[in-house]
């Protein structure tokens, strides 16, 4: 549930999105109150001195990173995720995405499949995880403010009571990590399980780990990248 007390309805479709760092740079009025919200963990929209609307997100504590070199493709992470979070077993709505890249990698089937990523190629298994983005496209696209920063972990999570099942988050995410559950018509995305992700605990080779966000960003995006999903 969002803790924001300011404008939320439709906010993702409106003003400019920003991060906490941008916010500190630009924000003027209501600074103290907004900072309190961010510290608690939330997403909020404030108006700058110039009158621009800014969507401000608390910094997440951490994000999951997958190592394609160690992954064995057992998919225990996927099922652990959905059993804990949804009370049922599924691959499609898992917040960790192994299945969809299992056989043919991120890029999918090609005529050179036998040498490309995947179990039918070079055996490399590239899972995709939620990056808990600084400026989460999913959250900014949500028309009801259902996606917010968790109070404890800062993870971008879905408030099922507010989700209307439009799928805007799934479309907006560049990696389509947020996924609409067709059985409930509610979006699912990674919560990091309150900072103790069951997917990582279920991984039998240590291929999935939760890293502090600064380190995760390096592994996901930067010079130290290990995630095949970035490549």
């Amino acid at each position, binding site marked *: 549930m969002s803790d924001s007390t300011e404008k939320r309805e439709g906010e993702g479709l409106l003003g400019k999105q920003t991060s906490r760092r941008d916010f500190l740079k630009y924000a003027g009025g209501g600074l103290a109150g907004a900072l309190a919200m961010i510290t608690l963990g939330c997403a909020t929209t404030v108006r700058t001195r110039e009158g621009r609307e800014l969507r401000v997100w608390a910094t997440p504590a951490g994000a999951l990173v997958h190592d394609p*070199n*160690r*992954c*064995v*493709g*057992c*998919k*225990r992470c996927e*099922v*652990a995720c*959905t*059993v*804990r979070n*949804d*009370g*049922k*077993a*599924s*691959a*499609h*709505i898992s917040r960790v995405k192994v*299945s*969809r*890249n*299992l*056989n*043919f*990698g991120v890029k*999918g*089937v090609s005529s050179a*499949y*036998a*040498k490309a990523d995947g*179990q*039918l*190629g*070079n*055996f*490399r*298994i590239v899972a995709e995880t939620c990056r808990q983005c600084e400026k989460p496209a999913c959250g900014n696209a949500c028309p009801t403010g259902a996606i917010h920063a968790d109070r404890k972990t800062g993870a971008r999570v879905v408030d099922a009571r507010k989700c209307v099942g439009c799928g805007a988050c799934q479309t907006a995410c560049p990696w389509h990590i947020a996924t609409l559950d*067709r*059985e409930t018509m509610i979006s699912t995305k990674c919560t990091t399980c309150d900072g103790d992700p*069951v997917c990582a*605990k*279920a*991984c*039998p*080779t*240590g291929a999935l780990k939760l890293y502090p966000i600064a380190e995760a960003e390096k592994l996901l995006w930067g010079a130290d990248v290990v995630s095949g999903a970035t490549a």
Partner: protein
Amino acid sequence: MAQIFGYSGKILRVDLTTGKISTDETLKYKDFIGGEGMSMKIMWDEVDPGTKAYDAENKIIFGTGPLCGTGVPCSGRTNITSLLPTSPFNGVSSSHMGGYFATELKYAGWDMIVVEGKAANPVWLRIEDEKVTIEDARWMWGKGIFDTQAMVASFMGKEAQAAAIGQAGENMVNLSVIRTGASHSAGGHGGVMGSKKLKAIGVRGTGSVKIAGDRKDWMELDKFMMSIIGANNQMVVPTTPQPWAEFSDKSSRWTARKGLFWGAANPPVETGECNPKDMQSVGLRTQKAIFDLGPGAEKYTVRMGGCSHCPIRCHSQLKVPQLEKYGMDPYVANTCVGWSGPRGVMFNGIKDFDGHGEDSNIVGNAIGTTLADDYGVWCNYAQIGRDLKYCWDKGVFKRVLPADEYASIPWEKLVKGDATFLIDFYDRVAFKKGEFSHIGDGSAAIALRWGLGDDYWNDKNGKLWTRGGYPVHHSNEAGAQVGALISCFSNRDAQNHSHMNFIGSKLPIKIQKEIAGEIFGSPDALDPPNDYKPMNTFKARFAAWALKRSILHNSLTVCNWMWPMSVSHDKERGYRGDTGLEAKFFSLATGIKMTEKELDEAAARCFTLFRAITVRQMGDADLRAGHDHMNKWITKADKDKEGKEIPQFTPGTIQMTEEDMALAQTMLYREFGWDEKTGAPTRASLEMYGLAGVAEDLARRKLLPS
């Protein structure tokens, strides 16, 4: 419709003759658990005796069970049941494959697929959740299994899983497979798909499997299982001494140790100490490549693969660049007989060839496995190589092959160990080229065709178990009469590991005997290796339990290459496992409360129905004489160096005796309540298992024992 748990609730039915696609309810078969059990019920109800494997009237059933898709460790298996072409009477039989097909099918909302009829032209079946269509496969026909899977995914999306046949299945080679993923084969039923002109089944599932129990209870039970699970085949002792382990055994598949790597990973991944309390190293325990292919395979290992929801990775995935010399892709994967079956064709071994030096064996294995997996040729549990050797040694080929065909076969490569012989061999078999290709018909068929008599069946090196044409598979060498009994009932190699996952654990025999005493009533249920004793009732109980657990696992569907959890690596538990885990998971998953005993009784019902189908197909209730008999090499005493017979039941020999095995079969029949004279189900036993209708049918046909 009320919420269904564990099961998806629906069976997909496809008639390829009419093109009709329909839906059936799973739970009307719930007395038969799922997978193999339900398939046996459908085969009994719907396939008339006298039907042949390649007839349109035969059905082929792809089955999952209520634990498949739930995430239970080692629950990614697909059971396939149909009439078996290699059986001399086309007996009903099951083949199994791992991989990811079964869970995808569950998530698409289907527990099973029942295919009947025969298409006019090649087709493939496309399943996208509830949407099912029959598609044109004329362009796929003729392709290998790898390309076929890629073609299916190109239509359905990269997420799709596919099960397909290769050229061998298309050509109705009896020894052919249905395969999915990189290396998961169900041997024996590829030709049945080919006879129906069904090239592949593609499936994509975006749904879920619902779990009835509290999710925290489920997660706790999963955690417990993960605390007792071992390595491949539930071997719970490491190969080398480890700081955490009391025991070690060089023959164990728990090969992980410091300094042992997935050497072709980038960077290489060390398997390491693998302390059982470290849940993030469970998948590293089994470095199977060095076990299957020798220490030289370490540097070729990219990773270990396996099946959905299984933490124990038993498929070696290798990069062998030398394959490119032969126009093959360098990536190749398999496990156990998936390697040794094709290798076995090279019956003189693989020697240095084409300059591969000390890596010749690995390159040769990789060539054979690539060919067998893409063409989809089955090895009949390595029997194809033994049949080749017998026919070579006995001059059969010279006798039966036309001279020009004989001259065209590169025998010199076979003799000197040049593995490029396999390229020629599999081409002939898969495409049914010439008389030689009948080696792919299977043992019973070549015995008939090429006039192979008693000498063939009774050849100890041939390892043929019965005249049903299938070989040993953890038989008398595995638990004496227990393994020997287990091998007598299927219409193919037994594929039973219920006993192996216990007695192959590598725990000291003293501990194993203690545990056997607790499960089966006496430590005498288990003899030490190479020190066998005559039959007793506890061994019969052990064998019956193993048979029940095998069909139970193929019904749930969980992997009988890991389950049951009879033992553990945990010294604090006295190395005990938990034989009640199947029932606990079943009850939590489905909401149907079942005790361990009740689930075993349901498995006995399924196995007895399988037995009844066999009676009806053979048209003879005397299965002891007509079906269960063993070839004579099994009961023939060994001889020592001086040519003197080594009496059975003395240390150093694993040979059985006819009298003792006859008693063993009697005791086993008694365990199931069958007729002790013939081994056929009686009216009383059928009624006890709730199969009164089956008893009526058999009575009408005069197939109930008197």
